């Protein structure tokens, strides 16, 4: 089947790839910037789509080739017609040193996407802000929080465990100040 890769949105591509992998017995979870794009209605545009799976790359490669994606090197896949690179970071799905076992599922016309929950998506971005002081990640966390109904107490509890309440308060302050 031919797809209009150039004009497909990240959500559609994620769904298409996820479903195709799933049909072939490969379970994946969408993590990283792709979740931010979806939860922010593309206000933030990731240039890569990150999936985590326990399946080996050797098993993924022929399945993705059916969609025109070639394995570049290591865990990266490229389709010359698609503007997004696919990456398969090493498992498990984790936020800091804690495993993630609760996910969100979104249905689209192109199939189903299993992805991080809203709160875990924000924690994931905040983790990068906590570790590397990455302001872009902070902005992305705010963007997702602004556009969705968020359980802030869950995020605060996590930030406290991480010993990062000070930075969590900066996140909250900017969330209340900034208009996105």
């Amino acid at each position, binding site marked *: 089947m031919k797809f209009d890769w150039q004009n497909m949105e990240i959500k559609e591509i994620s769904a298409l790839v996820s479903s195709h992998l799933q049909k072939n017995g490969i379970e994946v979870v969408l993590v990283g910037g792709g979740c931010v794009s979806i939860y922010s209605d593309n206000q933030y545009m990731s240039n890569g789509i990150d999936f985590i799976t326990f399946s080996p790359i050797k098993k993924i490669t022929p399945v993705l080739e059916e969609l025109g994606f070639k394995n570049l090197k*290591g*865990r990266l896949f490229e389709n010359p017609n698609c503007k997004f690179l696919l990456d398969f*970071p*090493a498992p*498990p799905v*984790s936020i*800091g*040193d*804690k*495993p993630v076992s609760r996910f969100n599922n979104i249905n689209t016309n192109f199939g189903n996407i299993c992805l991080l929950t809203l709160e875990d998506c924000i924690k994931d971005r905040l*983790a*990068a802000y906590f*570790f*590397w002081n990455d302001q872009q990640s902070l902005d992305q966390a705010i963007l997702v929080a602004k556009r969705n109904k968020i359980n802030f107490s869950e995020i605060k509890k996590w930030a406290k465990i991480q010993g990062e309440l000070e930075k969590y308060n900066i996140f909250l302050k900017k969330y209340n100040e900034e208009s996105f």
Partner: protein
Amino acid sequence: MLESLLGNSTIEKILFTLESFDQAYPTGLSKIFNIPVNGIQQQLERLENGSVVVSIMAGRTRLYQFNPRYPFLKELRALIKKAMEFLPEKEIQIYYKRRTRPRKKGKPYEV
């Protein structure tokens, strides 16, 4: 010491170096351990693919450090630290206690 577990001695050296200095770069590691830079890069790539390390660019140099988001980092570092206690003192002095304080440009480094 951890060679059999990690797959090879180069990875062990890289991890010991990161534990000692927090960051490392391929040519630096290559010079210190007298291992071809390709071999070092290959192992760093392997560690990066496994999310054990991450890299950032500093000018034209790619600096590697432990990935703070690696879920087993605390346990891995504890194992590395424990293994390093068994290194001969001479080896620690040569490889893992190198000068890290600043040195003005032009002043020779004492060995």
